[in-house]
């Protein structure tokens, strides 16, 4: 019969008090576990949220605002950059450092969910959470030739009960986006696809064709176009060959203009970003590898198509190219030449037109600087709860000592040493702590599992009851240390018990 068993029997002897004490400890540990697990998962999810591209190019200003708005679709949209800057990235002087560039325009919403105007390659070319490719639970990606098509995130589909074929009208920036209001001046947008769940903020967003965005009344103007630049990708079915020709020509032209000494990037300060690229439609060849942008003919057709939309909504032509704005451009730099990517960022930031931020860096700063501190405070509070629960164990065992003095005296009379009875009390404290801790561990992970659907629904972050954090391992030695400290006092009382007096008291 081990001392552990003797201690365990003593706990069983005071079952109710022991269960309540361990329960209090369990609640504290559950709190610690919940904080650790949720923080760990949120941390990973936040950091992964920006994966898939290296840089966000946007207007000068607060880089955090740019990242929050672009990656997490939070807060006010930052200032815009001219569309021509996107041309610089895909065809102009920055093109050699850019592998993929995805333009995004934000500011519209539909029933609290942000409507992001972009190009189909957002889902065809970009990846998320490492190497995962976007998939469609229903339908397909929107067509670059269909300006009023959109795809929606999984949460949007579930919450708004929207399905493929449904239509909606986004609201203007600044309008009430919390109610059911729809802007009748906007053409109805048809949902053609529902994204499979990604666990990223994109689950809670709506993505429409950028061209359609420029057809909205609030962006009216002359003819214009949307270009996608997919360097190194052959044959985009959504684009025309003539478009390829001009892209290629422009790209080649820019590359040939690169200044000596800079490997492909010309930090020209006098570049006119407000103007569309020169000779946009002056070159023709059939290089399918550069089949990325649309020709003016296609544009005219696109505009015509848009005017003849099946919903019969009247609207003017799309925004002239020169007047077009973008909220940001998501840029994948050339993975074969990382130095070029670094140089791209430096040059953009040195100029006055735009800024380039690495979202992972900003998110790390955000986490480490703000959210990390909040976590620290939460952990400290949770640890204090555990310490209070530990004091509860002390009080529980100490209070039982008056009843147990006689029991201890009997053990001593049977030959148990002072050290032995003190050890039994310490083991009792450790068993209560570890038992409570184990219960708390299960409770904490159980709570995380129970709350997982709610967390995923509200934040897009996928948590699992079985996601363990390495720092949870600290709980075991921590609880044993705490139990030893709080068990010391009653153990000392047991150690000092006067056997003869205690035995005589019960005769």
């Amino acid at each position, binding site marked *: 019969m081990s001392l552990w068993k003797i201690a365990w029997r003593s706990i069983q002897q005071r079952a109710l008090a022991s269960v309540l004490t361990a329960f209090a400890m369990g609640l504290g540990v559950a709190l610690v576990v919940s904080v650790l697990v949720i923080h760990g998962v949120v941390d990973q999810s936040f950091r992964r949220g920006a994966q898939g591209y290296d840089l966000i190019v946007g207007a000068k200003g607060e880089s955090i605002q740019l990242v929050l708005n672009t990656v997490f679709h939070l807060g006010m949209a930052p200032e815009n950059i001219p569309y021509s800057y996107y041309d610089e990235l895909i065809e102009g002087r920055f093109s050699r450092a850019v592998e993929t560039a995805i333009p995004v325009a934000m500011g519209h919403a539909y029933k609290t969910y942000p409507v992001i105007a972009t190009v189909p390659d957002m889902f065809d070319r970009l990846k998320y959470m490492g190497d995962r490719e976007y998939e469609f639970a229903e339908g397909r990606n929107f067509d670059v030739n269909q300006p009023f098509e959109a795809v929606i995130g999984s949460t949007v589909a579930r919450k708004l009960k929207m399905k493929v074929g449904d239509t909606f009208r986004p609201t203007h920036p600044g309008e009430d986006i919390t109610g059911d209001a729809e802007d009748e001046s906007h053409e109805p947008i048809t949902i053609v696809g529902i994204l499979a769940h990604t666990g990223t903020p994109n689950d809670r967003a709506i993505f429409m064709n950028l061209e359609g965005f420029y057809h909205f009344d609030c962006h009216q103007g002359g003819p214009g176009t949307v270009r996608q630049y997919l360097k190194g990708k052959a044959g985009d079915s959504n684009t025309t060959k003539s478009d390829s020709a001009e892209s290629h020509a422009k790209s080649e032209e820019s590359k040939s203009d690169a200044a000596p000494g800079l490997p492909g990037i010309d930090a020209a300060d006098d570049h006119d970003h407000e103007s569309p690229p020169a000779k946009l439609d002056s070159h023709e060849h059939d290089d399918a590898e550069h089949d990325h942008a649309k020709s003016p003919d296609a544009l005219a057709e696109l505009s015509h198509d848009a005017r003849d939309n099946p919903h019969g909504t009247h609207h003017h032509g799309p925004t002239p190219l020169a007047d077009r704005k973008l909220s940001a451009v998501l840029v994948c730099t050339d993975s074969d030449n990382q130095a070029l990517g670094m140089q791209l960022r430096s040059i953009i930031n040195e100029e006055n037109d735009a800024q380039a931020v690495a979202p992972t860096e900003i998110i790390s700063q955000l986490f480490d600087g703000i959210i990390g501190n909040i976590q620290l405070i939460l952990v400290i509070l949770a640890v204090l709860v555990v310490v209070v629960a530990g004091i509860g164990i002390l009080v529980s065992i100490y209070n039982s000592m008056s009843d147990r003095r006689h029991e201890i005296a009997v053990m001593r009379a*049977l030959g148990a040493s002072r050290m032995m009875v003190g050890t039994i009390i310490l083991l009792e404290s450790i068993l209560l702590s570890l038992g409570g801790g184990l219960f708390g561990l299960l409770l904490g992970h159980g709570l995380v599992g129970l709350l997982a659907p709610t967390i995923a629904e509200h934040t897009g972050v996928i948590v699992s009851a079985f996601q363990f954090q390495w720092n949870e391992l600290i709980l075991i030695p921590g609880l044993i240390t705490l139990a030893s400290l709080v068990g010391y006092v009653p153990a000392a009382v047991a150690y000092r018990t006067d056997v003869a007096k205690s*035995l005589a008291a019960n005769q």
Partner: protein
Amino acid sequence: MLELKNVKKSFTEPDGGELPILDIEDFRLDAGEQMALVGRSGCGKSTLLYVISGISRPDSGKVQVGDWDITLFTEAECDRFRAEQIGYVFQTFNLLPGFTALENVMLGMRFAGGRVDPNRAKHLLERVGLGHRMTHRPTQLSVGEQQRVSVARGLANRPRLLLADEPTANVDAGHQQQVVDMLRDGCREENVALMVVTHTPEVARQFERIDNLEEFNRAVVIA
């Protein structure tokens, strides 16, 4: 086997004065011998048992058990010696309530530091007629049964000496003789010396040797 020489023990009174409890010039008990110790309440019987078992230390004198003078032991040595060489049967049984009858018997073995022998514990319980109640907790046993478990526990470590402090005081008249018989038979079979403190003349009369502590405890005479 047991020899006390000039053993004195006193307690400090609340006013700071000394209250002599024991003053025994010479007391002996042979190996395997059985005796009853009688005397009025407060004459020091329980204190004498505590001094013999090493639970209390005498202020002076010598307590020899076998080859060892236990007054020279450290407290830890005394604890170990008590666990191995001395069995104890209490007036109020003092079974630990969280443990079964069998576990209570084995507890003594555990504290002695040696191998816990469940077979011996079972054998002892069977011998006191509790083979069918080994897994019962003390609260599930009658008073008489509890005292029988206490006797089995006292003999568990094959002690040289078994001290029984008024073992029949809380047992009804019908079961007193049963307890005394178990104590005497058990000690005889294991060649264990037995000292039974009792107030009950019927119990005392069954022993060949009956010592009245008041007669040889000079502290009582002085008081």
